[in-house]
Every structure is written in structure tokens, then in C-alpha cells.
């Protein structure tokens, strides 16, 4: 009950289908405050549908509470406390930077204009420029400057760095962490560039074909997943320990085990190879390759 009261997002039996195809099928999860949650899945997994449901941009069946509100019926109130970037490049091309500031300042009670201008001063963006005159990276910086100057409790980002070069992507996530994130805020982001964000996530939710495949804090992953890397001559023996997924890397075999800690597995697999907690990216591949559990 306590969790239900404090969860920033709580979904129970969330469903959405487009015609005969089910985009999200009976999904349940809860996201606690002060977390940075990665909503990770391959294309067409249902990420965007989930994202739209959370933001009240689409209709759905089932129960979903965002900051205690139903995004279907209380969207207007919800948007006071929730910010999102749906995609890079949705800022209209005719908009001037100064107009963007005027607009958000005019309609958003929690917008701090000086924060946004401070951020913009660190970039090459000029106030008189129109969005169409800016590079793709600069448009993202502008969007970020606008959104991060809003004192919101929940920030939802859908593929925020798509199409940006590495430099901008780094800068984006650094800004997000250093200038924005604190324990009263929650960030949910979807991406399929898992490697780049795995260090900043506190929680991961894997989603595939409309189902939640994994829902865990990053810290707890080590209690449930082990990666055992063995040379090919030990592969047969290691296979007897029943990994749920394996793949070959440079003549060695990486095996993924579920439901046991490294210590537990170590007793069985003594000396067979190296054990470690799999990276989020590797775990993602392992989980996706195996399909729906």
C-alpha cells in the first residue's frame, strides 16, 4: 500500500492494441521517486506506446497512475508536474529561441527563465535564431534548456539523443545528471543505445513484444544474474549448469545465468571460468534473444 501511494508511476494490467496487434499486453510495473529508469526494448517492443500512455497522449485499457493521477482524465493537471521530450526535432522550425523562452515562460508556472538562459549561454545558440537555422544538436540543446528549466517532478524522455553525435550525447546526459537530477525528481527514458546510459540508470525495465521481460534495480541485478565466461573446452560442462543464453566471443563462450548469485554459481562452476555481473547491454541482448520469459 505504501508503495502504491508513493510510486511516481504505477501500471497495472496496462493494455493497448492497434487493431489486431497488441502493442502493450497486460503490463504492470511501478517506478519509485528519485530513480533514473531506463525503459529498454527493441523497435516495436511497445516502448513508445507505454511512453504515450504515461503522458496521456493515447488511450489504453487497464490502470495507470502517474503522480497519483490518471493521465487519461487528468492530463492538464499532470502536465504541471511532468515534462517530456517526445523526440528530438519536434520544436517547430519557425520558432525563434527568444519566442520559445517567452512561450514556455508564459504558459508554464514552474519555468525558470534565468535557468534556461544560463544554460543557453554555454552554447552557441543565439536568442534571435530560428530553430530552422540551428543544427540538430543545437535544437536538442535548446529543447533541453527549456525542459530542464522547468521544476518538474517527473521527466520522461523518448530516445532523446537519437541522431546526435557522441559529443552531444555525452553532454546531454552529463547535463541531465549534474544540472537537473536530484532525489526528488524521477527520470524515465527510453532508448536502444543501452551502453551509453547504463552507468546512469538506477533501474531498468526491459520490454519486448508488449511484455515486461525484466524489472529490476541495477544494484539488484547482481543478485539474480551472473555471466560466466569460459573457454570452449569447458563449454560443455558449463552448459550443464543450464544458462538461459550463451554467445561466443573471441573463441570464448559467455553464458548467462538467472536466479542465482555469483557466490551460489561459483560453488558449482568452480574454476570453469570468470564470473561477473553482466552489463545491462549484455543482459538486454541475452533477454531479448531468449524471447519472452
Amino acid at each position, binding site marked *: 500500500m505504501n508503495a502504491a501511494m508513493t510510486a511516481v508511476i504505477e501500471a497495472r494490467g496496462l493494455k493497448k492494441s492497434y487493431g489486431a496487434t497488441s502493442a502493450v499486453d497486460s503490463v504492470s510495473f511501478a517506478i519509485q521517486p528519485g530513480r533514473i529508469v531506463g525503459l529498454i526494448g527493441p523497435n516495436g517492443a511497445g516502448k513508445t506506446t507505454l511512453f504515450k500512455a504515461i503522458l496521456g497522449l493515447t488511450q489504453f485499457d487497464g490502470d495507470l497512475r502517474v503522480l497519483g493521477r490518471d493521465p487519461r482524465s487528468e492530463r492538464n493537471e499532470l502536465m504541471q508536474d511532468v515534462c517530456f521530450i517526445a523526440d528530438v526535432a519536434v520544436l517547430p522550425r519557425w520558432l525563434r529561441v527568444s519566442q520559445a523562452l517567452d512561450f514556455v515562460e508564459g*504558459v*508554464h508556472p514552474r519555468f525558470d527563465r534565468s535557468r534556461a538562459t544560463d544554460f543557453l549561454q554555454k552554447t552557441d545558440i543565439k536568442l534571435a535564431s530560428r530553430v530552422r537555422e540551428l543544427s540538430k544538436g543545437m535544437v536538442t540543446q535548446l529543447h533541453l534548456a527549456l525542459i530542464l528549466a522547468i521544476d518538474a517532478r517527473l521527466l520522461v524522455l523518448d530516445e532523446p539523443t537519437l541522431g546526435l553525435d557522441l559529443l552531444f550525447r555525452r553532454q546531454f546526459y552529463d547535463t541531465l545528471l549534474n544540472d537537473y537530477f536530484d532525489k526528488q525528481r524521477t527520470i524515465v527514458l527510453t532508448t536502444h543505445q543501452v551502453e551509453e546510459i547504463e552507468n546512469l540508470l*538506477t533501474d531498468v525495465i526491459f520490454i519486448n513484444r508488449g511484455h515486461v521481460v525484466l524489472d529490476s534495480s541495477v544494484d539488484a541485478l547482481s543478485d539474480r544474474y551472473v555471466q560466466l565466461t569460459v573457454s570452449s573446452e569447458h563449454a560443455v560442462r558449463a552448459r550443464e549448469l543450464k544458462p538461459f543464453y550463451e554467445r561466443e566471443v573471441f573463441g570464448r563462450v559467455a553464458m548467462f545465468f538467472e536466479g542465482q548469485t555469483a557466490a551460489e554459481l561459483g560453488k558449482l562452476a568452480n574454476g570453469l571460468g570468470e564470473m561477473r555481473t553482466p552489463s545491462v547491454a549484455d543482459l538486454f541482448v541475452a533477454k531479448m534473444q531468449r524471447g519472452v520469459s
Partner: protein
Amino acid sequence: MSTPETNLSGADVAPVTAGPVNAVAHRSAVQTMIVLIRREFWEHRALWMAPLVIAVLLVVCAFPVHMGPIAHVNAEEGFWSSDSNRRALFALMQWGLTVPQYIVMAIVLNFYLLDCLYVERKDRSILFWKSMPVSDAATVASKLLTALVVVPLGVYLLTVVTNLLFSAIWVARTSWGAGGVPMWDTVVWLKVEALMLYGVIVSMFWYAPLAAYLILVSAWARRSVFLWATLPPVFAILVERLAFGTRYVTGLIEYRTVGIWHAVDLEHSIEHTMTQGHNHIVSLTGVFDKLDVSLPFLNIDLWLGLAVAAGFVFAAARIRRYRDDT
């Protein structure tokens, strides 16, 4: 990539307080609406540029316009020596000068209304607008207010200024001996301007369903908004004509576009024209004097139209709220 220094993933996550709620500046509905309407003028610059360009052109025309017609007018001593006829001509010119401005405004507004909820879906900027705490109803209302109230009143003021400048130039030219009849009559001027303002206000009410229809098409059509706005009526007219041989749709469209001016009973007023011999000229001041201001507002169709407009606007807001194909 840097990680936060604090132990984010640890168990010591702070309990949720009321959220990062600082003293929040209040945004009233009126303030928000003003910002939304300003936004429309940023995006659709034709809304103010086109009327302004026409106004400038008209004022410029006051300089080189050949005084021939006036000289000719002058020659017909008998007709134009009459003060009342000269005043009627002055009033008509005053009216005539506004015609291009209102025609341009009508064209610009039609395209604006068709575009206003369509372009944001096409360029996907709707995802940015919807990330702001602005309701769909407020957004749609801001567009309707822009088209039905703000732009018409703005253009009205512009026609007043245009008229004053034009008249000033003309009076100056004639009095410096360019020939023709120096024309200025404050009473006539005020009456004609009042008449025009009245026309603008009646239009706001009468054309509300038309504007709301265009907004609805703009919110609904996936592409080719212009065709979606024009083809269904044309189709309905043709089908009706072929199937039943009747013309009710044509009649309805005519009524909803120009019908209100019959309700104002202009014909009745226009009978009071200045005539002398073969020449005759409509007296706008006569129209003003005879005007029954309440007539269009006593017409139940005006209010029915408003109810239909409200329905269209509601539908447009619902569509914007729930459609998710961007």
C-alpha cells in the same frame, strides 16, 4: 560518462516530499490565452503581414492615383455640386478602400484556420506543445479567437488608420490644386466607421460556424486539408442535384456565407440612394441611419450557428486530445 556522486541506486532514497514545489507563479487563464494568441502570430505571420502590406499599398496609391475620375466628376456639375451626393461619394470611397483589406483578410483567415491544427501534426511540433500544461480546449479556443476576434478587430483598426492616411493625403492633394473635390466630412466618416465596425461584429457571430468547421477539418484530416474542406460540400451539392434535383445545400451554404446581410436588411436601406437623372449612388450614411442594430441578433439562425460552432470546436479539441498518430 559521469555518474552522480551521490548513491543514487542505494536504498537511502529520500522519502517523497511534496515534490520540488517552490512558490509557483500563478498563470491565469487570461494570461495563458494571451500567450497562445501571440504564438499564433509568430507562426502565421501572414495574419498580420498581409493586411499590413495591403494597407501600405493603399496609402501609397493615394499619391499617384490619377485625379481623372474626380475631374470628370467635377465636370458633371449638376450631380456633384450637390453636397449630399459628394458626401455619399466620400462614404463610398471610404468603404471601397476597406474592401481589398477585408478580402485579403478573409483569404488569409481561411488558410490559417485550415492550417492551424494540421501543420502542428505534420511537423510533429504538437508533441512539444502538448508537453506544456495547456489544455486542448484552450489551444483550439486560442485559434478560434485569433481568427474570429483578434484579426478582424486588428484589421478593422488598420482600415481606420488606412482611411485616415489616405484621406489626409487626398485632401492635401486636392487643396494644393490637383483638382477634384476636396472630400472630408467627419460625421459621414464616423457613421461609415461605425457601420463597418458593426459589420465586423456581426461577422464574428455569423461566421463562427464556418470558422469552426475549418478548424474541425484542420484537426481531423490526415492530409489535403483544403480538399477535405471543399470537396464534401461540393459533393453534397452534386449528389443532391442529381439524386433529388433540389438545391438545399447550395441554399444553406449561400445563407451561411452571405445570408446575414439580408437579415440586416441592407436592401431596404439601399433603396434610399441618391439618384439624379441616370446617375445614382448608394448612401452609406442612409444605411447607417436606417440600420436596425438588433436584427441579426434576433435571428435564431445566428444563435443556432453559434451552437453548431461550439459543437465543432468541442469535436476539434477532442480529436486533438485523443489522436495519437504523430
